[in-house]
């Protein structure tokens, strides 16, 4: 193929990592919800979309982009907690089908609500001034904002890991996921733990959506297309595994980037083919616990 140089390959690899960073954030949230609550969240794409629109709303009120990064996930995480408290909570212990179907219906409502208030057309979202343009990364120029996205993803992964592994609250969450009965007997309010976990999971999706908005603008359908992809990432990584979400997210990002370099029309089918192959060789995904939910 003409025009493909080692520099271009390296640049493409980087592009894949930036794409993968968004997948990672989505898959982390999804995996968290599945691992801790056994909820397969079909509304994850909708929360992602809400994150972008929350950003637009806040920017409209004059909040600057950096505070948006904090407040938008909090706001949407709050909505996530409300839906856990009033809808999903009633379905625990009734198999994985019911939460899955409920969140499916919920995503319809959220998407349509956004259409009513923000229009069907989608809205532009400008890259913040400080992050515009391209930076020299030795192998060539790369859009600064995409570097920023990679940076945010690394920060979030680190923070999440510290929270789960190094704080007493994280300990309770991990224990709750393993054996809710014992945790309850120990006198801990498991319901509240679930609530917080749901807030974190949906907040992560909102953050991913907000980060993606300057790349592609905001539209009511933006969550629908990425939902399937983030399922692929979550499943390839192993449902419920956070390490898996990170590894698979970056892998899928790179695979998409590389196939679009060599065979662009195959980029979309590539990730599904990847998932089919991984699952046939290792049905529980890279880091999934064998037998979980089987």
């Amino acid at each position, binding site marked *: 193929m003409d025009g493909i140089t080692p520099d271009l390959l390296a640049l493409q690899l980087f592009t894949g990592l930036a794409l993968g960073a968004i997948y990672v954030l989505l898959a982390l949230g999804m995996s968290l919800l599945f691992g801790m609550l056994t909820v*397969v969240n079909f509304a994850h794409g909708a929360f992602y979309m809400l994150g972008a629109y929350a950003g637009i709303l806040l920017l409209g009120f004059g909040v600057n982009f950096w505070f948006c990064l904090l407040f938008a996930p909090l706001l949407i995480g709050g909505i996530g907690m409300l839906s856990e408290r009033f809808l999903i909570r009633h379905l625990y212990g009734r198999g994985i089908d019911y939460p899955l179907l409920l969140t499916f219906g919920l995503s*319809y*409502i959220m998407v*349509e609500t956004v259409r009513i208030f923000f229009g069907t057309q989608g809205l532009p979202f400008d890259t913040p001034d400080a992050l515009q343009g391209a930076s020299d990364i030795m192998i060539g120029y790369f859009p600064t904002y995409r570097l920023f996205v990679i940076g945010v993803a690394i920060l979030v992964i680190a923070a999440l890991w510290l929270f789960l592994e190094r704080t007493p609250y994280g300990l309770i969450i991990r224990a709750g996921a393993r054996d809710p009965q014992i945790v309850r007997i120990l006198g801990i309010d498991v319901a509240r733990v679930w609530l917080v976990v749901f807030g974190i999971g949906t907040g992560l999706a909102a953050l991913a959506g907000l980060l993606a908005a300057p790349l592609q603008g905001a539209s009511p359908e933006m969550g629908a297309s990425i939902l*399937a992809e983030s399922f692929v990432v979550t499943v390839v990584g192993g449902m419920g595994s956070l390490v898996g979400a990170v590894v698979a997210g970056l892998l899928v990002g790179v695979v998409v980037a590389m196939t679009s370099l060599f065979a662009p029309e195959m980029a979309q089918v590539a990730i599904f083919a990847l*998932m089919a192959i991984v*699952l046939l060789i290792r049905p529980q995904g890279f880091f999934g616990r064998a037998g979980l*939910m089987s």
Partner: protein
Amino acid sequence: MLNPDFVARCKQHRVILAVAFLLIFPLLMPFKAIAVNILIYGLYALGFNMLFGTLGLLSFGHAALFGGGAYACGLAMIRLGLPWWMGIVCAVVIGMALAAIIGAFAIRTRGIYFAMVTMALAQCVYFISDQWVSLTGGENGLRDVTLTKIDLGITTLNFVDPLTRYYVVAFFVAIALFVLSRILASPFGAAMEAVRENEARARACGYDVRATRYLAFILSGGFCGLAGALQALHLSIVPLETLAIANSGLVVMMSLLGGMGTFFGPFVGAGVFLLLENLVSLWTVHWQIFVGAAFVACVLFFPRGIWGTILLGRGR
């Protein structure tokens, strides 16, 4: 909740009752084309329900079986010049063949992974059909699946006439209902029930659990393929969207809405869903909010679905 004795008596004659209902059904609907759609999607949901309701296997890739049938019927008629009824035969065969292929991979996995493998493989079918433009028409779908006259020897039916078209489709749906009812009453039906009720015990009793699942998947493909063929004939086109993820999701929604695991639930679900969508979208462009709310309400308050609730009352 209906009187259980009454329900039991009705169950014995469910095929006859269903056929009687099919005869008067189009007169109750706002227009004939939606009655046809309800039958087609009802049949599609029926095929899906064989797996989900009867065996508890949640597939997210049934669009491949439905769409595969639709394409098989259309391609047989357009590219091979076969008569329409051969198109239907091809659709059933291809539906089962696709199910055999997808099932061979998917049946090894369980639970959420089963849903994901079926979804991934169905996506592959979608992309193949999207890319293979010379055969399938690609994004524009298959056109000119035209059936105008049906020659029966003694008389000729005008398939374009709305009511005639309905009864032709209803005829095939009635056959499918009869076949399904025989399957459920057969030893294989008992095996499916045993596997659903208690997998370990079924295995201990000597049932081959995996083979039961696999066979059910293939049979399910036959019903969905038939539904796809009927849609191709009804609309005279095969849109690429019949293979899309959304179409897989739709059938899950319909089954759940109607009541999974019940015989007529899929039809009730398809009917309520399509009517709701049709009526609300005449009235507001924001019909999806109502569909979504109906769905959430159904999961929360009527986990047995509409038909299941009528038969057995609420409860979970």
